[in-house]
């Protein structure tokens, strides 16, 4: 994959993102990949003059991730999308659709997950996996 | 008396008929200048017949009443024009009809309808004073507000009131809801307000407003024809040229906003009328 990849944890995600913003990177998007029944992977993509930089965050399915939308406003849309499709909850979202961006209000499942997951309330918060 | 009866009946039938046919021709010509074939000539009538056949959904009683009142006022205005009655009376009755249309839109709760009604009021505010000024010009020329006096002239009014005729053209553009003035509602719904003023009228009630609109068109074009009242062919030509200009304006302008309309309409309209009136008075 083009560009450098950095593995990060829940605790230094916001710090890294802020640093990347200061360096003049543009927010591209976040990709969510389902690894197995427990782990999910969030890939944050940034770009500066066509040089990509990726942050790789491994996260447990029932964890809440901090939202980077206070740093990059544009991230609110994709974070809401991940909330809807993969069921990972974000906290601190600037605009929170509460899983209604694509879904109806009463949907509890995450349609993009291969392993059928019904939404539960998150058990851990900002804990390094 | 019988003659009057026939005239009234003719006005009631031919007013909307002529308006509808003009609307059909308008649609064909507009299509042609846009490189399209366009609908058949009778399409407006097909549309209205279809609307009349639809289920009647009344948003509230007021609105139903208003649609009927609008049609009534518009027809009365056409009848009075055919009877060669008082110009001011005709204009006021026409204005009353438009007010009913606005009130009907205000009586519904849809925001599109509300904003459309608001804009329509602003449009009326813009064109009504201008219409009165044109009537004043006619009075200065003929010495009377009666249309019969216009017909008694030996020379076409256009020669003496050229600028006021332009003002009438401006009013016509607003009344016909042509670009750049299709603010409150437009013939197609590609507008920020969708159908604006007419959003909540539907089915047979919408058909009534459409027929009333044809009456309004016939009335205003009849008013235009007065400017060449000495010769029927001249009158016809004048109306045809005026309408062609309307189609032209419609197709070379973008839609503007109401601030621009007030500024431009008033500024331009008032200036042209005053120039003409002062000129008439000075002679």
């Amino acid at each position, binding site marked *: 994959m083009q560009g450098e990849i950095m593995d990060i944890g829940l605790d230094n995600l916001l710090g890294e993102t802020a640093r990347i913003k200061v360096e003049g990177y543009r927010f591209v998007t976040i990709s969510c990949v389902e690894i197995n029944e427990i782990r999910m992977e969030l890939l944050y993509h940034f770009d500066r003059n066509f040089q990509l930089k990726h942050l790789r965050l491994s996260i447990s399915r029932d964890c809440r991730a901090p939202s980077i939308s206070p740093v990059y406003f544009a991230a609110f849309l994709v974070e809401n999308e991940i909330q809807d499709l993969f069921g990972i909850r974000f906290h601190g979202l600037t605009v929170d659709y509460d899983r209604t961006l694509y879904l109806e209000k009463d949907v509890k499942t995450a349609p993009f997950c291969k392993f059928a997951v019904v939404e539960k309330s998150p058990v851990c918060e900002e804990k390094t996996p | 008396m019988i003659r009057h009866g026939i005239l009234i009946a003719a006005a009631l039938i031919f007013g909307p008929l002529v308006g509808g046919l003009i609307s059909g021709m308008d649609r064909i010509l507009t*299509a042609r*200048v*846009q490189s*399209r*074939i366009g609908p058949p000539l009778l399409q407006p009538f097909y549309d209205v017949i279809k609307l009349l056949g639809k289920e009647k959904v009344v948003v509230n009683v007021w609105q139903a009443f208003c649609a009927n009142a609008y049609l009534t006022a518009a027809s009365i205005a056409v009848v009075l024009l055919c009877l060669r009655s008082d110009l001011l009376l005709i204009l006021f009755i026409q204005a009353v009809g438009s007010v009913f249309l606005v009130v009907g839109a205000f009586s519904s709760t849809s925001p599109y309808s509300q904003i459309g009604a608001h804009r329509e009021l602003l449009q009326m505010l813009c064109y009504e004073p201008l219409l009165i000024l044109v009537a004043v010009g006619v009075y200065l020329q003929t010495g009377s507000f009666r249309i019969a006096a216009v017909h008694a002239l030996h020379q076409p009014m256009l020669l003496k009131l050229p600028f006021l005729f332009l003002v009438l053209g401006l009013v016509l553009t607003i009344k016909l809801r042509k670009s750049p003035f299709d603010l409150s509602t437009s013939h197609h719904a590609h507008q920020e307000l969708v159908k604006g003023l007419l959003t909540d009228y539907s089915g047979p009630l919408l058909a009534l407003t459409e027929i009333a609109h044809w009456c309004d068109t016939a009335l205003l074009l009849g008013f235009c024809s007065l400017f060449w009242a000495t010769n029927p062919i001249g009158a016809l030509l004048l109306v045809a040229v005026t309408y062609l200009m309307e189609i032209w304006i419609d*197709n*070379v*302008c973008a839609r503007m906003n109401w601030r621009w309309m007030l500024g431009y309409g008033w500024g331009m309209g008032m200036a042209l009328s005053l120039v003409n009136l002062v000129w008439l008075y000075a002679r």
Partner: protein
Amino acid sequence: MFTMTSTILRNLLKEPATRRYPASVRPSFEAARGEIRNDIHVCTFCGVCAVKCPSQCITVDRKAADWSYDPSACVQCGVCAEVCTSGSLQQARDYRKPVRKKELVVLKGATTPPKHSDPPVTG
């Protein structure tokens, strides 16, 4: 202002760009991707088309010599005709005519070797 005038006058004098569609139809381009037709007498029921089809609108039953195709699910990509081993699948130039009901095109081939004297049946 009024910069559009010359254009609209030109349009008025020229023929309209639109057609009265059902009455006048433009002939299809040579390369146009239209309806999928199967010459069932040539078809060997190998099933490659069914495997490659991205919208999975073709089903082939080898034993019963059945070839069925769902035109309303077809995306007209032409992959099936491209991969057809026997050359029985062809993509016609013309589009399929509109229909009132969705229906499957089911073609039944002979289980015996193809007879070339028969007129080809297309679907």
